[in-house]
């Protein structure tokens, strides 16, 4: 299998889907001439021309609004927002329109729109560029939410998102763009709602969201080598739909669950998942479901503070240990 970077895998998914389907087109700030703030759209303007790779003004609500409109009349737009923070400017189009039109029109129209955007901290981009808003979109019925953590999933899920007739919030992670990984050649679309078990183990289930799936994988190795605890690591890959079957089955085996996410603790992805786990597996729990989350603060600019504001390997290790004993 060829190795490629996360950003290259996304680029390949866009190219393949644009080649396969004329109705797929891209819109966003600086995606054409500048080839994207994170170079995900590299080479696509040259290959597909201005009609299908459109640079837009700084106008998130309009970009998404055009996406909703063009999706309703039969195109398959993929819009890029420069960060998930900026998507808040387009909340009206996303929540009141994209998510709801199919419902409001009784299924007569659908909205096959993909909104790509990076989230997450680590590059000192401060509180207006570095947040993790998975939970905000997870909240909305009518939206699908993908959070790929590997190049293979980035490609497979983006292809699936473009082909899906529902609006998809596609959250990439800024620090993962340069990560390399194996990507199957001629791979098709991945399936939404299918979690990946990244590592099998009998002792504790760790669910890692987005980049935290990578962080949790390191934590799982430390738990094994230093504490003789074999963690089962689950990457849900999509938060809507969410593969609760895989998670619950794992918790029934391990009796313990830790959820690692980068977002804020209150009303977060982990808060929701912890509620679901206790509803569906209460009689199998040996410990409260524990969460490892970002700090309950706006993301700091200062490097040491920023590093302290999102979870690292040792936090996941500590949480996993705390399901066994006082730490």
């Amino acid at each position, binding site marked *: 299998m060829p190795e490629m970077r996360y950003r290259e895998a996304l680029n390949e998914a866009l190219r393949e889907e644009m080649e396969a389907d004329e109705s797929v087109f891209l819109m966003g700030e600086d995606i054409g001439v500048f080839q994207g703030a994170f170079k995900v759209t590299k080479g696509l303007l040259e290959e597909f021309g201005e009609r299908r790779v459109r640079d837009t003004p700084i106008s998130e609500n309009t970009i998404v609004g055009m996406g909703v409109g063009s999706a309703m009349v039969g195109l398959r737009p993929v819009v890029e927002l420069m960060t998930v923070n900026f998507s808040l400017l387009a909340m009206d189009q996303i929540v009141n329109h994209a998510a709801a039109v199919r419902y409001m029109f009784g299924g007569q129209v659908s909205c096959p729109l993909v909104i790509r955007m990076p989230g997450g901290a680590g590059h000192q981009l401060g509180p207006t560029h570095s947040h993790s808003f998975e939970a905000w979109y997870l909240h909305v019925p009518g939206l699908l939410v993908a959070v790929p953590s590997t190049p293979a999933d980035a490609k497979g899920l983006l292809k699936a998102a473009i082909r899906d007739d529902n609006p998809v919030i596609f959250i990439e992670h800024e620090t993962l763009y340069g990560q390399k990984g194996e990507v199957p050649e001629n791979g098709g679309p991945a399936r939404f709602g299918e979690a990946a078990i990244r590592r099998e183990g009998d002792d504790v289930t760790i669910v890692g969201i987005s980049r935290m799936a990578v962080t949790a994988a390191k934590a799982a190795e430390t738990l094994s080598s230093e504490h003789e605890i074999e963690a089962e690591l689950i990457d849900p890959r999509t938060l809507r739909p969410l593969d609760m079957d895989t998670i619950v089955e794992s918790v029934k085996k391990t009796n313990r669950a830790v959820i690692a996410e980068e977002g804020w603790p209150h009303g977060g992805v982990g808060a929701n998942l912890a509620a679901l786990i206790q509803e569906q597996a209460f009689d*199998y729990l*040996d*410990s409260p479901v524990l969460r490892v989350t970002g700090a309950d603060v706006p993301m700091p600019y200062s490097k040491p503070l920023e590093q302290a504001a999102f979870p690292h390997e040792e936090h996941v290790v500590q949480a996993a240990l705390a399901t066994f004993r006082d730490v």
Partner: protein
Amino acid sequence: MPEITMPRLSDSMEEGTILKWLVSEGDEVKRGQPIAEIETDKANMTYEADSDGTVTELVASEGDTLAIGEVIAVIGEGDSSGAERKQEEKAEEPEDKEEPEPQEREEEPEPQKPRRTAPSPNGGGERVKASPVARRMAGEMGVELAELEGSGPGGRIVKADVEAASKGGATRAEPAPAAEPERGEAGAKGQVEIHELTRLQRTITRRMAESKATAPDFLLEAEVDMTAAVELRARLKQVADPAPSYNDMVVKAAASALREHPRVNAAYRDGKFELYSRVNVGVAVAAQDALVVPTIFDADSKSLGRIASDARALAGKVREGKITPPEVSGGTFTVSNLGMYGIDRFSAVINPPQAAILTVGALKKRAVPDDRGRIRAREMMALTLVCDHRILYGADGAAFLARVRALLESPLSLAL
């Protein structure tokens, strides 16, 4: 007024026999308090009240066999209304109550609170702290939660505790004892017994293979003159209980030397050296069909006596199968001793990711020439240091081992 019916205490149970009432009419009972011993098709079990109240009537007598669902007793509400009812009843039927109540009460105090958390002074028993899965399994297996000591955070009773109780002493280290050996086809090797590995055995298999496959190891051997240590131990025996063993002395000497040689108290991991601030010495203990390495934490700062008592306690727990994961993790170095089997010297597999393992051979009298060439009988013992060459080079390992030997040959400082 809740009626207590014959409970279903096993899946196949159809009827049960009241072996013994643990309460009398008129007694106040708390939820969770054992009220009766019931014999089922499977076992004799204690049945607990599922609400607070006052026993108003014991419908079934001891020895009665009743079908599931038949009323065995009636428990009234425990608060003021119950008290009123009790008074009414007392007024109505005074003669019935007289004889059973006083004597039976005196005889029965002991089964009522078997080792349970002491009830608070106001009489309200505390809710037993148990995880949901432990609670469910205890119910299924007929294990009395109140009699268990929890090993989870904050003393919570967890699944492993219930499993251990139901199996009489199995632990998390050995959660599922291997199933009955399977018998395979008879062949040139005769009948083949197939044993599934326990989880602990699977872990050992994986880690030992990983160690051998990844660590380029080499051996350093040293003969230690233990004559002075033997004399010291003989003297310590008269004052210390437990008297430190030679292995405890080796642990203490190694711990002191580890403090002075940080590269030995370290690990090679992912292209980096990790040096640890704590000196935690693991001591390999053979358990039934397995190998467990409990950890003596901060062995460098513990006295020899403390190391001896810690080691005794940990080895005891291993043999009883009561060792817990925190007690077998966190080691930074390992000592393994087969001297008791008369093994002179041996090599061992490094416990990854540690930098080295020290093995201890048997103590034997040997003829050794002294400084002036005179042959003397000395108590000799071989130490072998197996090193991971990625982090520990020959000279580093040698300096460490020489220090261990020096400490053991002049052992007085170990006793400090």
